[in-house]
């Protein structure tokens, strides 16, 4: 049983790492009161997914997918890379929108702490 576990861990550690990083991000989003730290958490969360995608694209011994006439090289799968380029663009735009919201929240309430915000909102109705 235990002997089976090690190869399992070692051959699939990319998935475990992705999940661990994802959980770190999720923890930051839930536990941190500072809105900027929440955004950082969100970014860590998204990065974990990017790494997951990139790791599934890998082919052992594969090389960059550049087509050269006459060579029969083994290529890694380029599609997940392309998908992730798109997802990175989405993630950057999300971060931009989130940060601009934080700036406006700071202008309005002079704080970016969620606890303070909740107290203020609770006070005004």
């Amino acid at each position, binding site marked *: 049983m235990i002997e089976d576990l090690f190869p399992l861990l070692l051959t699939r550690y990319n998935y475990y790492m992705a999940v661990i990083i994802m959980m770190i991000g999720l923890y930051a989003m839930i536990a941190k009161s500072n809105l900027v730290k929440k955004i950082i958490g*969100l970014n860590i969360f998204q990065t974990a*997914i990017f790494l*997951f995608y990139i790791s*599934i694209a890998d082919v052992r011994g594969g090389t960059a997918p550049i087509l050269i006439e006459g060579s029969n090289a083994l290529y890694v799968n380029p599609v997940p890379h392309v998908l992730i380029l798109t997802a990175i663009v989405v993630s950057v735009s999300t971060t931009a*929108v*989130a940060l601009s919201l934080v700036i406006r*929240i700071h202008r309005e309430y002079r704080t970016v702490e969620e606890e303070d915000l909740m107290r203020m909102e609770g006070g005004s109705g």
Partner: protein
Amino acid sequence: MMEHLPVLVVIIPLIGAYTSLVGGWVDRRYAFPIAFINILTQFTAALLLTVRVMQEGVVRYNLGDWLPPWGIEYVVDRLNIYVLLILLFLSLLCCAYSKRSIGMEIEERKHTGFYTIFLLLVAGVTGITVTGDIFNLYVFLEISSLAAYTLVSSGRGGKGLVAGFNYLVMGSVSACFILLGIGHLYMLTGTLNMADLARVLPPLYTSTTLHTAFVFFIVGLSIKTALFPLHLWLPDAYTHAPSTVSALLSTVVSKMGVYATIRILFSVFTVEFVVGYFPVMEFLSWLAAIAIIAGSLLAIAQRDLKRMLAYSSVGQMGYILLGVGMVNQLAMTGGILHMLNHAVMKGCLFMVAGAFIFRTGFRRIDDLKGMGKRMPWTSAALVIGALSMIGIPPTVGFMSKWYLALGAIEAGQWVFLAVILASSLLSAVYFWRLLEYVYFREGEGGVEGGTGDVPLPMLIPMLVLAAACLLFGIFVSIPLSLIDPVAESLLGGV
């Protein structure tokens, strides 16, 4: 021109977004007419597309002439076109409504930006409806969601900002889950085309990876559709957004989430999978039933009109998912019909709430005493919308509840039948209270804000929707002629 229609309906608002931005730079007054004409053009294109779909059944379009499954394919069938028409019709009315409505709620210098983002949102939801590629669906989902976050926080005051921020965090997490689900599917099959996925998945139905992917999809989509108990972002976002945005969110954005759910449940994974291999429908139906009751109960507890409507939306989304979850022809028809009904009724009611705020600044139900006399047309629209929400014939709300109830009987689910009836009573409770204040309580004399109805650009969309509540209720055969084959083809495997 005609063969490019599926992609044109997406491109028109994208071009429109930039034209209205440039037009707005030249003169702020140009932004609105450009946006309006754009959505009108898009609606016309969608109508032309409807004609084609009616003739050909399914319209396929290969983007950039790349053959599927390598290229992105746009597929328009009856379900797409039905949802597309609802979304564009409501966007058109919301756009018309916004002209006067945003005057008070959004700073003047931001109006150009408002219409630009409005059009981007429309482009996003249109893209979701026409695409046949699952990653493309994710990208459009994010385009429309990003636009929605921005619109929610575009009003004056800080509450909209905080609501927008929370919406953004929840929405992004849900999008990440969907992305993970797509990743698992790709890992398993190496394809992203929905039709192709449906073709290659059946031998893999017992795979754990597939089950993981499915769970990621369900959780992600449940957050987007605000299925109870993942609805927490919704009430604040609907309440603190500018009125026209609330109407847009509750009609257009929520429908796109439901559409994506139906598409992924039945067109990517099939009925065979969701019933036989991974019996999630039973669970979804129960969740939807809880959502219906909880949404209605929470709505009764609210004092703020828009917040009450927001909680009632949570319940209404439950109706649609309940219809989908019971997996039989009648219930499915009811659920899909309710997409149209909810869009029409809730759009009307949010516009009425916006009209009250526009004229008097009152948000609380207690303050709305005597509105029936002060704003007769607005209140009339409120009555029709409210009756339709309760489900009194001949309004349209009755028809979908009728089909849902028949579906529950056919499925032998007596609990769900009781839930549907009980929630009608509960919605009667909160809407009668509202109507009582509006019509039967005397308002104090000399209230500020003046009397009379709202300006015509706001009144007309409201009355159109109120009329639609009645017309679709009486001539229910028109939407049904479209929905029946849809429900049949979705349930094809059973």
